[in-house]
């Protein structure tokens, strides 16, 4: 599928230089712009072209290209179906069965392909087996496998296969080659393919400029994570909460720069808790005020009940104290209560003297006092 994508992209080349190069490559390889991506493909083509007579070159290559295109199209469809059909979890027996079916389908398809390739190679002349294997390789490598996610050993094995030099294909029999190729397709791994790609030399830099334009999401997915991106993320996934908090703090610090104007400065101060927050609230952060009711601050007479004489100088004095306290905005209710209680203790200590002086008023009130004490 790589081939197809590149084809469509190259139809409208982005840069003038690339157009030029494309043009020249067209002249050379007659309307084939698809393989400028991988240079080994190009090399193959060149060999093919070289092996042919100049006069027959154009129509043959054209035919070959047309065939290649249709074949890649064909190759694309079944693999697509595989992906779509295959459910993620199926019972063991069923999966085995379906695998078997798949295998037969693939085998049939392989046969067809090999046959077709053979025909082409025959019409083409020259080194038949080589042409054929190249054709097959080109078709089969990019297709996506629907197999289970590969394991490590297989991957390593795949890497070994890939490191073989192309000459080895020639030495093997054709059946072996096909087998190898199909094996590789099953393991898939675009990675293997990538590992085997030859290194670009400095000289080829200009040629590669043709494909300098890259679409970021044109890669082949690895096929490891098969999850629905739309699926709702479970908010209760356990995480390291403090770690998250600290990381968020650090990230925020990374983008908090010296303020650029005073309002920006105020924003930073607000965030650091140095300024009043919006919406404006006079009692912001005054938690004590929220806990104490207004009446506790203002109505303090109840605290006089039980010990203070009903009239006389002490009562008069204490009432004034209460009025004063009720107007004080800087003391908490508890402090006000403590303040009154201090007077209570003070007068209690001096009770003898005060009674003698008659400050406690009538007998009745002193009786009351005794009752309270009892």
């Amino acid at each position, binding site marked *: 599928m790589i081939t197809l994508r590149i084809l469509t992209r190259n139809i409208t080349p982005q*840069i003038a230089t690339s157009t030029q190069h494309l043009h020249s490559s067209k002249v050379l390889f007659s309307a084939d712009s698809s393989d400028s991506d991988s240079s080994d493909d190009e090399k193959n083509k060149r060999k093919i072209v070289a092996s042919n007579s100049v006069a027959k070159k154009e129509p043959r290559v054209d035919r070959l290209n047309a065939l290649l295109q249709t074949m890649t199209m064909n190759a694309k469809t079944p693999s697509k179906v595989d992906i779509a059909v295959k459910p993620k979890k199926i019972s063991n027996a069923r999966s085995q069965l379906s695998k078997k079916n798949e295998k037969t389908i693939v085998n049939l398809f392989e046969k067809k392909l090999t046959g077709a390739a053979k025909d082409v190679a025959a019409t083409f002349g020259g080194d038949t087996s080589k042409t054929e294997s190249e054709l097959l390789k080109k078709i089969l490598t990019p297709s996506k496998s629907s197999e289970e*996610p590969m394991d*490590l050993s297989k*991957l*390593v094995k795949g890497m070994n296969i890939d490191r073989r030099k192309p000459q080895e294909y020639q030495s093997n029999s054709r059946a072996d080659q096909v087998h190898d190729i199909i094996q590789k397709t099953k393991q898939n791994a*675009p*990675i293997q393919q*990538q*590992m085997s790609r*030859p*290194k*670009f030399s400095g000289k080829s*830099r200009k040629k*590669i*400029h043709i494909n*300098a334009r*890259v679409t*970021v*999401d*044109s*890669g*082949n*997915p*690895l*096929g*490891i*994570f*098969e*999850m629905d*991106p739309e699926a709702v*993320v479970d908010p209760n996934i*356990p995480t*390291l*909460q*403090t*770690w998250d908090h*600290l990381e968020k*703090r*650090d*990230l*925020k*610090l*990374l*983008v*908090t*720069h*010296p*303020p650029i*104007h005073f*309002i*920006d400065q*105020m*924003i930073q101060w*607000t*965030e*650091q*808790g140095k300024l009043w927050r*919006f919406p404006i609230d006079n009692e912001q*952060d*005054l938690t004590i005020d929220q806990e104490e009711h207004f009446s506790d601050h203002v109505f303090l007479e109840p605290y006089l009940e039980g010990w203070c004489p009903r009239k006389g100088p002490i009562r008069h004095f204490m009432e004034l104290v209460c009025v004063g306290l009720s107007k004080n905005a800087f003391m908490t209710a508890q402090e006000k209560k403590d303040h009154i209680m201090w007077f209570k203790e003070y007068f209690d200590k001096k009770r003898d003297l005060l009674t003698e002086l008659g400050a406690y008023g009538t007998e009745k009130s002193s009786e009351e006092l005794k009752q309270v004490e009892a």
Partner: protein
Amino acid sequence: MLTLNGRLGSRKVAQKLLARLQSTRDAANTQSIEIPKRIERGPTDILRALASTVGKDPTAAHFKYHDDPYFIPTSNRAKRTYALSREAGRRAAMWIRQEHAELFTQMTADPIIKDFLPRAVYDENSKVTEKTLHDAIRDAQLSDAVTIYRLLKKDGVSLRTKQDLLELLCYYNDEEPTSDQFPEERWFRRSLQNIKPKWKSNDIVDELFESLKNEDSAIATAAYNALICGTAKYLQVDKAWYLYDECLAKGFPVYVRSFNNMLRLVQFSKDAGGQRLTFMMDVLKTMSRNNVRPDIGTLNAALQLSTLLKCPEPGRSVALSIYKEMTNAGVEPSLGTYFYLLTIFCRTNGPVSEILIDILDRLEGKELEIKDPQDLFFFVKAMDIARNHLMNIDVGHRVHKLLLTGKNYNLIGENYMESIYYRHYLILAVQSESIDSFIKLYDTLVPNIYIPEPDVMNEILLAVEIAGASMAENLLPQLWSHMVMFEHTQREHLMVHVLQIMHTTCQPPSDSVANTQYADIAWDIWNRIEGQRPGYTMAVKWNAEMLGNVTVLLIRGGYFDKMLTVLSYLTEKQGVYTGILSKDQLDTILNACLENGHATAALSIISYAANNGIAGAGQMGYKLITTLSLDSAEETKLVNLVGKEVLQLHLG
């Protein structure tokens, strides 16, 4: 005129009022009034709305500098010093507040502002509760949290708090967290990419971990993950790997964060590219098997790993595969992702790639947010590639436009990276744009946003030189004053370049006012170089070419007396400077002396020419004797210099 009473009294008015009331009521009936729902506003929303109305003023110095011409910094060094001094003052104030807390008895703030209080000091006698510990952990006060924990230990600490403390210690290990009080210090920090210190084992970490790992599985899982993250973050590879394996073996879930940190370790575990790749795939597959959803950290860690692969292949295709895979799994790429892609695709020696254009297509007009510390490297990298890789000013402008979108400017990183960014941008612009449009850009950026480094200035001078004499006439005086401001006058190559432009490459026509301006500049250069502190190692040293240029420029500007000063240096201090003047320059000087009737100076020129074996001393002597009338002493001197025969030959 009707009074109000009269109006109300008249029937007509009353009727009108009634009719109006009626219509209002009808309207109210037909369409019900919808009261808009209250919009919840955050504490800074109004401020942000106000801030968005403030535009950028490139002509004003940055807000942090005192708004007074004398205090506005004009060089990179001054910018740094002023800003850091200001913050050092704040730091000093905080220190005094901390050391002499007993002197500050007034508590004017109500509610109390925590930042203005000295930091609490904890010792054996201080009363601490679990809440104190929790607050210390929240505010990332590492040493305090440890002290409090030691105090609390005998009373017992809840498992939750222990876990929190373990995470704090794993996150910061041994380094003190960055304070949020000193933005300037962060801004002027040298570079983000400091080498990470190694993991330092800490008895409290061990103790916490030992006590937590034997609890029930949820708690043990969190403890394992915290320690995996910590050891992996501080590159304690073996331990992290051991814990990771143990965690998997015990069947505890591994969090995505731990996987991400492990991925970052892969690069240290294997050296060959292929093996690393296999290893990475292995970790990713383990993630998938455990049903862990990858996040942005996974994507960036995997891409970071593929930057180490061979370029262009397989690095490029692996990177694209990873990108596709992760975006398919619902990961939203961040700027850091693109930074890694750029690193992979645009190598210095690799083939050219225009991936940046595609990335810009995706990002253009978007307001970006930081999701990963690597995000901060994107803009610098993008501009670097626009300049060095693509050499395309349009791409450069697009990157810059993206930077100016919304609050994206915050993602520039720090002062150092901002300088590099603008260095790339300006050099790219000066090399590929017409001088006019470049100067427009230059005027918006310099000097308040960016001050060009000497190398950039050299490029600009080159562009001016290429633009030709008439352009240089307009620009050079301004550029020179900038160079003086930016403290570039101690760079020898810049001085040489300026002199060369004024003298040779962009010589103004003789009737131009530029001659005077250039002479002023030359005289300024002379004074600056002469006024250097003696023994200064970086001092600019004269050479004959510079001196000659200065002299000629002074002559062109009509400053004969000033020229004489330079001339006496030229003739008397031979051996202090290198090289000799050219014949052309000597002729110009001689002509000027003759025009001004200064025989002594003319004689010294001829003596210079004769001593240095410059051909034509005799001719010069002849010119002198024919133009000016010399007294006998001077005549003898002249004869001694060039010989009688030559003069007579010419006379005859």
